[in-house]
């Protein structure tokens, strides 16, 4: 039997008995089955994907500017203004350190362990250094930071931006 390329027209060119030949006919029958299943699934799932992507696009467009900018950080950042204040106050070539602690109202279980990671990315190009003069206190005990520390901004719920006076 002449082998024709796989297409709807060539399938019609074969007699039913051709598809029962062992092994090539059975293989071709299998190809038709696989292609049919694929065709149906691809169209069904395309429909779903486009629908889901449309919903995602709508949700993304409806986000507030800050919600979009914080995105993954929304799961751990308690007061976005603190990081915005830090971005505004700490010079781009400056440095800071994050002192997390348990004293943040409304903190999630991710806040204390990961706020420094998020701040590192959000506040770039400002660097995190252990001896930085700027301090982002996220639930820390301000009195433990030293006597020369001046609070520049605080939200009254456990988050503060402070600076060593020296």
């Amino acid at each position, binding site marked *: 039997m002449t082998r024709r390329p796989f297409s709807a027209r060539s399938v019609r060119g074969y007699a039913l008995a051709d598809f029962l030949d062992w092994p090539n006919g059975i293989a071709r029958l*299998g190809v038709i089955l696989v292609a049919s299943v694929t065709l149906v699934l691809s169209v069904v799932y395309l429909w779903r994907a486009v629908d889901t992507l449309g919903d995602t696009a709508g949700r993304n467009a409806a986000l507030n500017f800050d919600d979009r900018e914080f995105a993954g950080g929304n799961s751990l950042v308690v007061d976005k203004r603190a990081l915005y204040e830090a971005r505004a106050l700490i010079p781009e070539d400056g440095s800071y350190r994050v002192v997390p602690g348990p004293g943040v109202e409304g903190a999630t279980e991710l806040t204390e362990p990961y706020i420094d990671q998020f701040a590192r990315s959000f506040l770039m190009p400002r660097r995190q250094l252990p001896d930085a003069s700027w301090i982002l206190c996220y639930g820390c005990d301000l009195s433990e930071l030293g006597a020369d520390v001046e609070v520049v901004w605080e939200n009254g719920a456990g988050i503060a931006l402070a600076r060593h006076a020296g």
Partner: protein
Amino acid sequence: MTARALVGLAVLNTFVLGVGVAALWSLRGWRSAAELARLSGLAYMLGVALLGVTLTIELVLGVPFSFATIVLTGLGLAGASLVLRRVRTPTAPASEVEGRGLGAVGAVFGVLVVLYLEALFRAGRLAGLSAWDAWAFWVPKAKAIYFFGGLDEQFFRELANPTYPPLLPALEASAFHFMGSADVVTLHLQLWFFACGFTAAVAGLLAPRVPALALWPFLLLVLVAPRVSSRNLDPQADFLLDYFFALAALLVALWLLDRQPWQLVAASLLLGAAMLTKREGLLLAACVIAAAGVASWRDRRYAWPRLALAAACGVAVGIPWRIWFSSRELSGELPSAGFLGLFDNLDRAWPALRYVLSIVFDYDLWVMVPPLAGVAIVLALLAGARVLPMFALVLYALLIAGFTWVLWSFIEIELPFVQDEGVNPIVRLTGSLVVVSGALVPLLLDAAWRGSDRPPQERS
């Protein structure tokens, strides 16, 4: 988020395409504008790989990373490609049979693929940076390269997974330069360009040799599989790795059939890029080379030295990065049980394999892509094809063994393993198996139909 950022990204990706076109001209050439258009997806992905690898090596060498560096590097690569084409005997364009045009099936599914990519673009344009790994270290690395003009040791040391290679961060930092700011929202569209490039590359390589009915529906099914569709714009390295790997595997498969040297050279570049994209790239590359070795057993005298050379070149491009992080005593590259520690934990082998199989065949993640790939291999073998189905069979088997090894050897992972699919490493790894299916299954179905995996013009 601005129109300027969108234009900047478009300019960058056109530039990358230009670099890739020059590389393709050097490697292979083309006979007509239509052939170049057909291979433009491959050219783009070669451009991504070439620019990504070179920028990574430059970063390691301490070359300051700036807009000028990116432009000069791209121009240098394009220039070197053109010079290479002139000084060596040009590779004759492959004697591939050009297709019969797009055809009705190709047109219908072409529209559907474009529709999907348009919807994907719309979803990605204003997406926030939500994926954990993306905001925790992939994008911060890119921002560090952008802001500090290089591999800032302090940042790389502090961030999670400091030994993950910087190819994607380098490309993302390039995107920031072209966008004019570290716009992590519009950055999602850089991943959209990668997805488009991969799709066009597979379609362009296979269109002249595989019937549209075997090619387009399966490629579309892979693209719209729920996990692929929902994660392929996350600005992290998983899908770029999968694209490099899948294209390399496809080119190696075609080389096994056609023996066109350019195919193996391009595959070697893509494997090198895969190894510089994520550490798993080494595992995936090893699977491709080993599978090709088994499939070419009969021609081993010819094939194996060439495969070994391709693998060596791929590995070589990753050496500078390994030296960089080793010399700084950054760690985290090897499994916690070590390579031989596996045998102290034999009880983990079966649960690990069982879990991997449950993920590979998870309908909700991948629809029926892996089972259909398995059926396609069986059908191709049944019809008498040997090289291609053997390559695919060994590749899939090695991939599953490799994923099992990952779960088995990282003993800090408790078994049975339960983790959200968003961050689950086995789900991420399995993406490579699914994406490569989009490239290999159309070839397998064609081989099963024709009863041979040789190109049509060789049989008469």
